[in-house]
């Protein structure tokens, strides 16, 4: 035992205390901690949990003291004190000691006041924290057991509250069968008087090992299966069958061992409900049903936060104040029920309250106000749909920020979290009566359904959740709707009118072979995948079965292989790597911007008009999309400018004040009428044209991306895609929105310049100026040249500014700044933001250089970012030509300060007409 022993000198005791405190503060790892200490701490945690429950129970009693309860609490406190002493946690023991006195006091006063229970609960919290200081997330002390049998008396009168910690320790030490000598695993009943005798405490790592061994056993059994299939020996077959039964049973049982009762999470809510209820002045009773329902260990932690938030939410918004309830004729005590049960391979958790219910009218109003939905769409929603709006992101903008997950709280986060683990969230409610939120979650996370594919002889697993559909490309199906087309060297799949980028798994995984794909090569199996709303197609060699796999995540250093999220062991013992879609997309995006062939979606990004014109003029086998515009005309749109082809129904369209829009992908897509934009059909008017098109019930829209936004271009019909070797004749331009004309066979098509059309529209209809320069996609507030020698400040100032829509180029010293400016095009920057204190050329010198020059940057505003602000420095700065100062304060404030300064400067410039 590590505690201090009989009658040590006081000095020694303090030294011991200091040592213990230090050790506990650092939180020793499980390895170097005494197993016994570890075990003791677990017990401390359990005792604290039980005491907490007792306190809550005591609070609800009318008459005090309830002898049985009081005695039980006394005994628990006594054991708790003994445990703390045993591991040398003298300060904690002292805390418990004072609690003992407190409790004893209540016997005499015959009242269990709120203050007392508050105090005890707070101290128990401290002790609980102490008990948890040894642990990683595996072992949850306390609440997994329901204590039914009273603890056996430790002996020694619990009532004698002796002031000397030592003496008490002696007393407890002398008792055999006391709780001081715990072992990591022990059977209840012997020595340690425990909760229920039917439980065993086992280290989680042992369980995991066991799982591994059993999985291995199952694999061998599978192999044996295959062997027995070709074997006629009846005895062998019989044995193999028996092995089957036994190993199957073993597997089931071991999997069940990983299950924990949901009470691990829910019991803590009792405390939460009590505390929050108190804060809000509401009386709430928490009822837990189905606490013994078991959930896989992997899921329990994942649902803790969402559940906590839902409980909070019910308390905050769902349940009324006692006055409101009285007025409504309800009992003052509100009821919050948490019900858990299993059904059909899922675990269902219902959180119901008998509060005010969801007011769909208010929800609708709020959703409209926050721009989450159009009134048209709203009118078509059922009341259930409307209620589901509470889960939309951005709905609860007025939501209180609690410290739950650090990030934004809100029902949308709950929904996202639950959906991430493959669950669903549902809400039902009756106004005035109450609300029920239902969570449906899969039984276990560790097992995921996946599709096994082959590539170059190796197997890969793709999570089923991400798969939209499977497609096969056969060369004879050219005539079908599914076609694969080449686009500037990068393949694109045309699927039912949509253009989906096509990736080849082979090319991605084995880039060294430098395989250029031709349409013929992509013949075979294609998996259409969805990653965060974007679809893309993946060509693989072969598609196998869909099976359930056990996900084994990668070790730390392999995590940088972003295209894989882990590996899994297949039935035959082989390994399959699990593909990570987000990583795959990132990987490919990098490849495309590095100069490899563009796909349809990326080529619409950030390509300047010049680039495009050049590319098309080169006549490198471009493709065009032929569309009907107006009654008669057909135009050609360069396929790289097409992001998607969509068809909208009449009900998806809204005519807003400025421009018609379509409901698209959780957002609104502004629509441009191509006929109007090209001025081709001048005898039609705006409304008439939209109506005419709408009367056909469907709208053919070409979605394009420009400056980071999606815009829809409305045509009368989408005709065809042509490949052509002709060059675009740029001399003949029927209208400003055209690039030129194209001669194809006997047809002449106007080639549309989508970028110009969109820019013109933005200017005319939206009143926005398109951003200048090819880089910034968002309208930048200003283009800044940042000069700062400190790596840290440079990096973070740049990112803070960029997040506030400044366009920033950063250099690390004055000379670099000068060079850069000299080489930059005219008016590349709106201002120079510079540090003063830099080696080599400091800020003052830089300013002087700039002002002395004759180039365009002679007049560019210079703002100093500095911590030097003495009067003398200010004068020096002014003399050097620096216009303004910003103090190096909290980085987050810099954008605002900069905007202020700029405002003043620009006003000055305009006013002065420099």
């Amino acid at each position, binding site marked *: 035992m590590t505690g201090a022993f009989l009658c040590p000198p006081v000095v020694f005791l303090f030294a011991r205390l200091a040592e213990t405190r230090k050790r506990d503060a650092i939180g020793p790892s499980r390895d170097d901690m005494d197993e016994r200490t570890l075990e003791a701490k677990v017990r401390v945690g359990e005792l604290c949990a039980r005491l907490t429950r007792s306190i809550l129970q005591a609070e609800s009693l009318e008459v005090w003291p309830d002898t049985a309860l009081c005695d039980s609490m006394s005994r628990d406190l006594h054991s708790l004190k003994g445990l703390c002493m045993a591991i040398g946690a003298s300060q904690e023991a002292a805390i418990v000691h004072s609690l003992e006195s407190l409790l004893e006091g209540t016997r005499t006063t015959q009242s269990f006041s709120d203050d007392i229970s508050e105090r005890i609960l707070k101290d128990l919290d401290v002790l609980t924290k102490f008990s948890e200081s040894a642990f990683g997330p595996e072992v949850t002390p306390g609440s997994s057991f329901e204590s039914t049998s009273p603890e056996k008396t430790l002996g020694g009168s619990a009532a004698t509250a002796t002031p000397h910690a030592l003496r008490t320790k002696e007393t407890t030490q002398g008792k055999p069968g006391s709780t001081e000598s715990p072992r990591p695993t022990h059977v209840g009943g012997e020595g340690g008087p425990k909760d229920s005798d039917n439980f065993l405490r086992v280290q989680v790592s042992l369980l995991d090992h066991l799982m*591994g*061994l059993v*999985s*291995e056993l199952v*694999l061998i059994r599978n192999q044996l299966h295959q062997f027995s299939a070709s074997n006629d020996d009846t005895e062998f077959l019989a044995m193999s069958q028996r092995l089957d039964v036994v190993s199957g049973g073993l597997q089931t049982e071991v999997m069940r061992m990983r299950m924990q009762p949901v009470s691990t999470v829910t019991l803590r809510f009792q405390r939460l409900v009590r505390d929050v209820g108190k804060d809000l002045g509401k009386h709430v009773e928490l009822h837990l049903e189905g606490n013994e329902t078991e959930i896989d260990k992997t899921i329990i932690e994942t649902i803790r936060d969402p559940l906590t938030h839902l409980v909070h939410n019910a308390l905050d918004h769902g349940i009324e104040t006692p006055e409101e309830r009285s007025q409504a004729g309800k009992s003052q005590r509100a009821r919050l029920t948490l019900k858990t049960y299993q059904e059909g391979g899922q675990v269902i958790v219902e959180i119901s309250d008998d509060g005010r219910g969801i007011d769909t009218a208010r929800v609708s109003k709020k959703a409209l106000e926050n721009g989450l939905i159009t009134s048209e769409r709203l009118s078509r929603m059922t009341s259930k749909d409307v209620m589901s709006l509470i889960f939309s992101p951005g709905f609860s903008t007025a939501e209180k920020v609690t410290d739950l997950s650090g990030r934004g709280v809100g029902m949308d986060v709950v929904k996202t979290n639950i959906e991430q683990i493959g669950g669903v969230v549902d809400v039902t409610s009756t106004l005035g009566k109450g609300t029920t939120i239902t969570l449906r979650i899969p039984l276990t996370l560790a097992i995921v359904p996946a599709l096994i594919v082959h590539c170059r002889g*190796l197997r890969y697993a793709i999570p089923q959740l991400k798969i939209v559909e499977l497609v096969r490309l056969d060369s004879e199906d050219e005539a079908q709707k599914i076609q694969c087309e080449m686009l500037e060297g990068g393949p694109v799949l045309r699927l039912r009118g949509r253009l989906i980028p096509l990736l080849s798994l082979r090319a991605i*995984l*084995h*880039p060294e072979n430098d395989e250029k794909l031709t349409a013929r090569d992509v013949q075979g199996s294609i998996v259409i995948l969805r990653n965060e709303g974007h679809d893309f197609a993946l060509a693989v060699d072969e598609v196998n079965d869909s099976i359930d796999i056990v996900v*084994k995540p990668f*070790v*730390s*250093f*392999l995590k*940088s*292989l972003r*295209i*894989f999220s882990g*590996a899994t*062991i297949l039935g035959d*013992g*082989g*390994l*399959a*790597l699990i593909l990570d879609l987000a990583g795959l997309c990132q990987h490919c995006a990098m490849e495309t911007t590095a100069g490899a062939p563009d796909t349809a979606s990326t080529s619409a990004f950030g390509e300047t008009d010049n680039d495009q014109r050049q590319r098309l003029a080169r006549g490198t086998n471009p493709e065009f999309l032929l569309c009907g515009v107006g009654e008669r005309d057909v135009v050609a749109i360069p396929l790289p400018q097409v992001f998607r082809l969509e068809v909208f129904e009449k009900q998806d369209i809204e005519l807003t004040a400025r421009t018609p829009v379509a409901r698209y992908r959780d957002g609104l897509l502004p629509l441009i009428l191509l006929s109007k934009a090209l001025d081709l059909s001048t005898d039609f008017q705006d409304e008439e044209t939209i109506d005419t098109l709408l009367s056909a019930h469907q709208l053919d829209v070409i979605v394009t991306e420009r400056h980071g936004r999606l815009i829809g271009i409305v045509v009368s019909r989408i005709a065809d895609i042509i490949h052509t070797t002709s060059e675009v004749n740029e001399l003949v331009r029927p209208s400003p929105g055209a690039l030129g004309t194209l001669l194809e066979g006997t047809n002449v098509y106007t080639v549309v310049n989508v970028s110009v059309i969109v820019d013109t529209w933005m200017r005319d209809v939206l009143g926005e100026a398109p951003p200048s320069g090819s880089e910034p996609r968002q309208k930048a507030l200003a283009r800044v040249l940042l000069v700062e020698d400190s790596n840290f400040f440079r990096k973070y100032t740049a990112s803070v500014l960029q997040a506030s829509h400044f366009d920033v180029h950063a250099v690390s010293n004055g000379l670099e700044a000068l060079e850069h400016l000299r080489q930059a095009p005219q008016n590349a920057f709106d201002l120079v933001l510079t540090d003063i204190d830099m080696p080599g050329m400091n800020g003052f010198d830089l300013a002087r250089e700039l002002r002395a020059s004759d180039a365009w940057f002679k007049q560019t505003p210079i703002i100093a970012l500095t911590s030097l602000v003495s009067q003398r420095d200010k004068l020096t700065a002014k003399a050097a030509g620096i216009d303004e100062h910003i103090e190096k304060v909290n980085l987050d404030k810099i954008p605002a300060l900069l905007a202020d300064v700029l405002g003043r400067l620009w006003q000055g410039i305009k006013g002065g007409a420099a």
Partner: protein
Amino acid sequence: MSFGKNASGHSSKEGEGSRAAPEQYSSFRVQGKRYCVNALSVQEIVRAMPITPLPLAPAHIHGLLNLRGQIVTAIGVRELFSLAQEPVTDKMNVVCNLQGTGVSLLVDEIDDVVEFPADALEAVPDSVSPRIRSFLGGVFKTPGEIFCVIDLVKVMDFLNSDKAQIA
């Protein structure tokens, strides 16, 4: 594995250098040179096993092994040490467990388990290349040979570092 033998030349004198308890090291050969690893970190030694290659992984990561349900990453010591790669097919796996992770070092041949007292560890001689030196914790000298001790912590640090990652 043969039985541990006391190969420390220094502690042939009684009482000197043997105050520290002897530690066992698992030794092996890579390109003819002897290396060793603290036996406490070695989980097991296995013959060549089928490896599932990891596309796009750096050269020193040969792939993944399935060791009775445990997924172990196979690291080629030759590549780690930037040695010339001869097409040696039958490699031995020294499966080590560090920080909870299973890592298998692919080596040419396995040698005996040797014992050295902890204080017999000496600094790595200058003749060792900087690249290899970065993975060594020291050397033990015997009359016949020098055993370079591979420090697994340094290996893990390297694997986790930026330099080891792919673009």
